[in-house]
């Protein structure tokens, strides 16, 4: 089953509409998720995931109850890198916690690192490559591989994550850096459970800048093409399944 996670309903609107035979499942008496099939693949669409605390907790629970083969985190992010424009699309190549400082707690720990865990969580290259192929075909906006810094502060600004973003290691990971709220929690749990994951997000604003509702609506326009590309990517997996299934017959 492919798990698609978004912060709010607008993030997952497109995916929810793709679900064939959708069924509602309530998780932990609070989260209403939908399961069904997207492009011939079992899929689950989860929303209302704010912060890495919630994303890691929910993901751990879902992995315990369902067989998850891939996690796709969708929605919107903010750009730290100046050259990224509103509407550009960021694919997570690596993910770092933006609000963790355990340097003094454990020797050898660096900023943004949880003791005993890597400094950054890296995304499987083949997942990035295949999603990139689909994006290339469908979306008009620029899409880039980026380092995602996740922080639980809403409307993050550069100041709050300045130290992490300026860290030599983090800045060496990728030319582009974006901010979001829940990727790191997902990355942490995905890595523990050895499940591939990726975050595909559209840049909503420069870090710390306010997005007007009209701007938001224009960013919203981007969600459908990205959704189409992701469903195409899922379809690629599915299509191969159809062909292989037919071949076995």
């Amino acid at each position, binding site marked *: 089953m492919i798990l698609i996670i978004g912060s*709010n309903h607008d993030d997952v609107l497109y995916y929810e509409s793709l679900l064939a035979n959708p069924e509602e499942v309530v998780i932990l008496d609070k989260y209403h998720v939908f399961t069904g099939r997207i492009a011939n693949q079992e899929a689950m669409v989860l929303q209302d995931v704010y912060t890495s605390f919630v994303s890691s907790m929910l993901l751990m629970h879902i992995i315990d109850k369902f067989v998850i083969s891939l996690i796709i985190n969708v929605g919107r992010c903010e750009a730290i890198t100046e050259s990224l424009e509103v509407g550009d699309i960021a694919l997570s190549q690596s993910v770092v916690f933006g609000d963790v400082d355990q340097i003094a707690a454990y020797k050898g720990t660096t900023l943004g690192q949880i003791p005993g865990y890597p400094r950054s969580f890296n995304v499987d290259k083949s997942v990035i490559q295949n999603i990139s192929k689909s994006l290339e075909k469908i979306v008009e906006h620029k899409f880039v591989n980026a380092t995602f810094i996740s922080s639980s502060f809403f409307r993050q600004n550069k100041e709050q994550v300045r130290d992490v973003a300026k860290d030599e290691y983090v800045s060496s990971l990728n030319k582009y850096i974006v901010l979001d709220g829940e990727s790191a929690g997902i990355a942490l749990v995905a890595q523990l459970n050895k499940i591939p994951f990726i975050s595909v997000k559209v840049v909503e604003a420069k870090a710390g800048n306010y997005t007007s509702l009209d701007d938001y609506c224009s960013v919203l326009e981007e969600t*459908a093409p990205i959704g189409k590309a992701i469903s195409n990517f899922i379809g690629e997996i599915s299509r191969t399944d159809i062909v292989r299934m037919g071949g076995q017959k």
Partner: protein
Amino acid sequence: MAKKLSLNSYSRKTFVLLTVLLGLIAALLVTLIVVICLDISLVSRVLIAVLLFIALTALSVLVIVKGMQFYQLYYKQGIEITKHNVESLVNLDRSFEEYQSKEFDEINKMNESFKKLSKLLGSSTLSNSGAVSNLDKVPLEFEGERVFVRERSLVDNLKSLVLFSQSYRIALIDISYDLGTEMINSRHTSWRIYQSMKHHLQYKEMLVAFKDNKQGFLVYLPSFDSLKQLEEELEYLAREISLLKRGGVTKRAIGAKVSMVVYPYSDIDHLLDDLNKAKKQNKALNIYVPDNDFNFNNKLLFSSMNLNSTIKLIEDIASIDPDPKKYQSNKAIIHRSIKNIANYFGFNSGGYISYDYENELFINEYVCSSIEEPIIKEGNQIDPKFIDALARVKESGSSYYFADRIHVNNEIGYYVDRLRVSSGIFYVLSRGNKVIGVIYFLNRNKDLSFDAYMKQSLIASCHILGGVIKEVDARRNVAVTDKRLNEILKVSNMRLYSIKKDTYEFVRYSDQIRRLFPKFDGSLPCYKAMYGLDAPCATCPLKNHKHMKSVIEGQNYEVYQVFSNKDDPTAHMLIQGLVGDEVSSRFDNETMLSSFSAFHQDLSNQLLAEAEGKVLLLRIKNSREIVSKIKTGGYLSMIKQFADNVLVKYSDFGEVYQFNNSTIGLILHGISDEKILEICQEICEICKDFEFEEQSPKLIYLVKNYHKDDSVQFIEKALLDGLSKYKNEDHEEIVFIDTDYKRSASLEGYLLEQLLLAFKDKIYQTSFIPLLSNNSRLIYGVEIIPELYDVRIDKKLDMERAASIAFERGQGAVYLNGIFDYLNGLISKYTYAFFVSTEISKLCIKVDHNFVSEPNFIEKAKELVNKNQLPKDFICFEVDETDVHEHEDVYKSIVKQANDIGVMFLVREYEAAYYQVAQLAEMGFKEIKFSENTLALISDQERFQEMTFLWLEAVKNQMKVSFTGVDSRKTSESIVFEGYDCGVSGDYYFKPMDENKAFETIRERNMKDKDNLDN
């Protein structure tokens, strides 16, 4: 249901009578028993009986009296007083009754507790008079829960709802979606949107009506604290209730359009009209407050409430004399008034934050507190970001009231949480945009439940107090500021003076003025003091709003007004020296745009240099409306803002000229018609996103060519004539003055205009792609591609987009009829016999779900087939796999209907992304056309195997297979699979061609070359 007994059902009389009767009976019985049992004489018996009866009766009376006392204590006091006190508590009323039996310790303790409770409630000034639902008074037609109401019922009862409500403000909100012909049909979707409303709009007695057109909601929201807060909540709501629109080729996420009006800003009878006006603003969030001059707070505060009690709280301030010398004593009175208000309304803390001009800091100047530790300590510095946030979120009446923490704007939420504040009010004192102080009354761990009158009393108190504070501070600061300003003017070299607009008397002047006019007398009006005149100058800039040329001591000067503000009673004038007689300046001093004289000069230079190009004038059609909205600055401010915001992208083209007060000019050297149309189109799109106080500029674009033989005067006259001739155009149009050619400035309008023009006049343009059999290499069909051209600029336009716009704007029938007319005409022209003789068995045309969803699609297709007696599957409509996936329901029904009348559908751009071949066959599709992407990867062995598997599936399901985009011999040769035939097309065989060429090619290929191919 069994009737429950009430203590009141037993009357006090019955109780007393019963008790007396029982006492007497008991006494009588005991007396009789005793008398019968005793063995004594009759006299003794009678005597004892009488004595005993009297004694027992007395005992009974004693019992009755005590019983009455207990009744008094337990029933009258215990139940009735308790009942009264509990009811008072429910209504948050502090008028508790005392229990009278003070001889009991327990009763005294209870009385003490109620006294404490009374004091507590008294200090908090809580009121719950609005607890009774107003909805009960209005005959609303609910649907299920008492929050869902029918749209008609809400609209019909709107006036009653507002009239019955005791609310301070009432909002009517429209949430709608631009869904075109689609509707919100899913209960899940509408329920989800309601859940979001419930989450973000946590207000009592909200009513929600699902609109009858099923494209949105109408929400009635009584009693909210802050317009800003509600605006913010609506913004958050709008960010999670977007929907998918299935129009066009693909799905599109669309945001909700939220519009709001507020009573009493909108008149009770105009709420719905104003809501429509709000919707017309056509932004994502539209808030319409009809009359900006309507000083809501003052009007409502001072007309509809009894200010007696409030006035008493602040009566001391009447004794204030704002003389700067009495500043300290005045401040003491102000502080006392703040304390009175805080005590009366029961706030934990009240105080005043003032701006320290010397150190440029905000300091908590005064605080009073009923709790141990004041919420903000006296003398503490206040974070200026907090003050800025308050200035942003405050209401138009300067106050920011919040009854509980839920309804605090996020902008100040952080600071409110740091202060651990639960409820309160901030009253922001400003001078212009500068905040100069904040009066505050705050509570910790206590919500406010004021009714409208309490709230208004509080705001009125702040309003009066704020006015006095401003006056006291202003008088003191003016003394300081005046002194400093004069010093600055003295040391500067500016010839600046200020005069009263009505009397022309000097308010202040710089020393340079005195130097310029040797006989200057500052006590006289300016015309007398400077020029020795007895009346204002004939060309006075104040009257004529133009620069005045002035000759002083043989030198040329220009006098003009600066910092123009109609609300300022003072006019500020600047005298500037000129070189020679040149009055005109390269730049307009107020807008800093290139002036008309610069335009004249530069155009002359262009002509002198024998250059050719175009002048583009952008005239703001709705300048009058914009100027009335922006209020300050007038036309010049408008033109400057327009140039700064809209034309910033075009600065590379050269200077931006202020042609007149509502027109901008651009001189574009060597530019083509196509490029200038592109620029106009871009500007039109930018204008849609730019607004002057919620009013987008509407432009007329005038284009005039200039050639080396033209004179500047001739061009300027033509431009002026053009401005006059085309000033009343209804639409935003681009007009070429020389040829009188006009077209819509917006891209969408233009595309639609071109399509309608072409289709209504039956000027069809098409290109053809021949389709070949892979085995025989003969042409078995053609794909017809409708095209759209702008002949004027000889440019091919995006036909698919034009068609999509036509469908979106309800003009789809024109496109559909045009396509069928064209097909009819084509078949009639060549006759079906020709197609038979050339073995052409298929005419294909690409369509989408919009096309097939048109109501007369099947009828038209049937007419085409029957009229021309076409064989089955001769007409073939091609649709994308993605489109099928996204509009599966449409195709599931239409494809089978089309098959029944002999028309086939094929799926193009097929990649097996959504459907297996068998699924498509089941839906009635008869052919799959692989996408170019699939073909590009055919050299990959794995992909080839996948493709052949799908091919085989198609064969099994009696479906044809075709490939498009074959562009090389190598690709052509790779399309081989076990001898199965398929259709092929692409540049390798034939490039797209026009109709004549296509039919010539068919003849040559299928008739002349047939023998050659066979051989």
